[in-house]
């Protein structure tokens, strides 16, 4: 029984592939070895940002190649990289304010509110909304709205004001974590416990154990203790 096939176009050339493959798998099926534009294969690293159109439809569509299933007559291009500007800074020295964002990325004030960034985001992030928040110094909001960003670069590729939105966002997330978010006291306590030697005994006994002992300990480990 022949598998159902679909046809997609890569760099303008048609390829027939079995139905149900992701774009990334379809490219490999068609014989391409991926050296660029391929990373974690799990929808997390942002390397495989893809723009595509389908026949007869003017609308530009977007997805991650590792997550998006090939549609028949899909006409696509991977955008593994789009040239960006990145400011140099030391996060320790920067106050979490509008002035910090504007002095490092003044072009953020050129935003025309066209929403092209949000329309092209494979993570459906409200990019225009966080750029508006950045302009007025609402760092916490930028950090929260941009949380799902994979730094794939598609927003920067479409922006008529030539903003690199994802670099503005990661600056805001760093400012938020360093200067606004409450410090994790439980983490500090745990680090102190370790430094005081709280794990030394366990570590020593594991280092001294035989392979057989280790295997036995591993098989018998409790994954979710009922009591903490």
């Amino acid at each position, binding site marked *: 029984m022949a598998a159902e096939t679909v046809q997609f176009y890569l760099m303008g050339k048609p390829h027939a592939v079995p139905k149900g493959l992701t774009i990334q798998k379809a490219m490999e099926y068609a014989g391409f070895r991926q050296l660029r534009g391929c990373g974690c294969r799990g929808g997390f690293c942002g390397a495989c940002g893809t723009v595509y159109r389908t026949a007869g439809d003017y609308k530009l569509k977007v997805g991650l190649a590792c997550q998006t299933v090939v549609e028949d007559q899909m006409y696509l291009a991977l955008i593994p990289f789009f040239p960006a500007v990145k400011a140099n800074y030391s996060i320790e020295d920067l106050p979490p*304010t*509008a*002035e910090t964002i504007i002095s490092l990325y003044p072009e953020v*004030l050129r*935003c*025309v*509110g*066209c*929403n092209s960034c949000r329309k092209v985001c494979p993570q459906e992030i409200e990019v*225009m*909304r966080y*750029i*508006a928040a950045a*302009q*007025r*110094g*609402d760092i916490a909001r930028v950090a929260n709205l941009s949380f799902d960003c994979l730094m794939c670069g598609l927003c920067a590729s479409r922006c*008529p004001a030539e903003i690199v939105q994802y670099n503005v966002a990661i600056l805001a997330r760093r400012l938020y974590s360093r200067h606004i978010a409450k410090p994790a006291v439980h983490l500090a306590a745990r680090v102190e416990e370790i430094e005081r030697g709280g794990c030394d005994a366990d570590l020593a006994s594991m280092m001294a154990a035989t392979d057989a002992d280790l295997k036995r300990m591993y098989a018998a480990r409790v994954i979710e203790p009922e009591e903490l």
Partner: protein
Amino acid sequence: MRVPYFPGCTLHSKAAGFDASARAAALALDIHLDELPYWTCCGATFSMAADSAMGLVAPTRILASAKDAGKLLTLCSFCYNTLKRTNKVIATDAERRRKVTTFIEEDYQGTVKIVHLLEILRDDLGFDALARKVVTPLKGLKVAPYYGCLLLRPADEMGFDDPERPTILEKFLASLGCEVVEFPHRTECCGSFVVVGAPDTARECSGRIVDAAAVAGAEVMVVSCPLCQYNLDRAQHDPANGGRAKAKVPVLYFSQLLAIALGCEPSCLHFESHAVDPRPRLSAWLEAPAPAPAA
């Protein structure tokens, strides 16, 4: 009364004193400024190019978000001017309305009324009623009202006041008990955004305005625009640093004087961000505890 409020980028950060004092003062008059839940920058300037659609996109989206309420309040002259002129294009130019509203996927016909807080004070409350609510009359304070350009021009689109001889700020100040100082240049441009590309040119404009106010006897000036405040305030720096004005006249937002006169908490004023410190001249009213409001 509750009215949807569009602060604009600057009022949320640099001009916090304008925003905070206006909210506090409005609240004292039972006017609630309800900030729009989602807003972006309006673009600051209105694009006068007849074929421009891009420049209308952001302000139209903002206006569309207020269409159910039918009204939108702004404080900043830039936002007021941009939103009002955009609204007129959307209401009267069918082709551009179609283009812009289709692009932003909103059904908007130009129905929102854009209002300024001064208009609400004049038309909904009345300056006589405002005078009766004043708990700390600013007696003896000589104030020069500065309008700048964007509140008044183009006159047929703004409809704010007489473009050559406006009186709304004068009446407003009189209702607070101030002594109003008349001076030339009160409707002349402070230099505006030219300060970004050609700061010396802008400083000349601002310096001229401040000097004229000082010569006329003003102790402070009031404005309705963070850029006017910045230009007029900074023009008074030491001439060695590029400042042009010879006088030292603090530049206040009209809402800061309103907040003081209505007995609001001084924490809403944010005078620390002003280059020419207003606190010495206003100390009598800032330190005295606010008397109980008249019944």
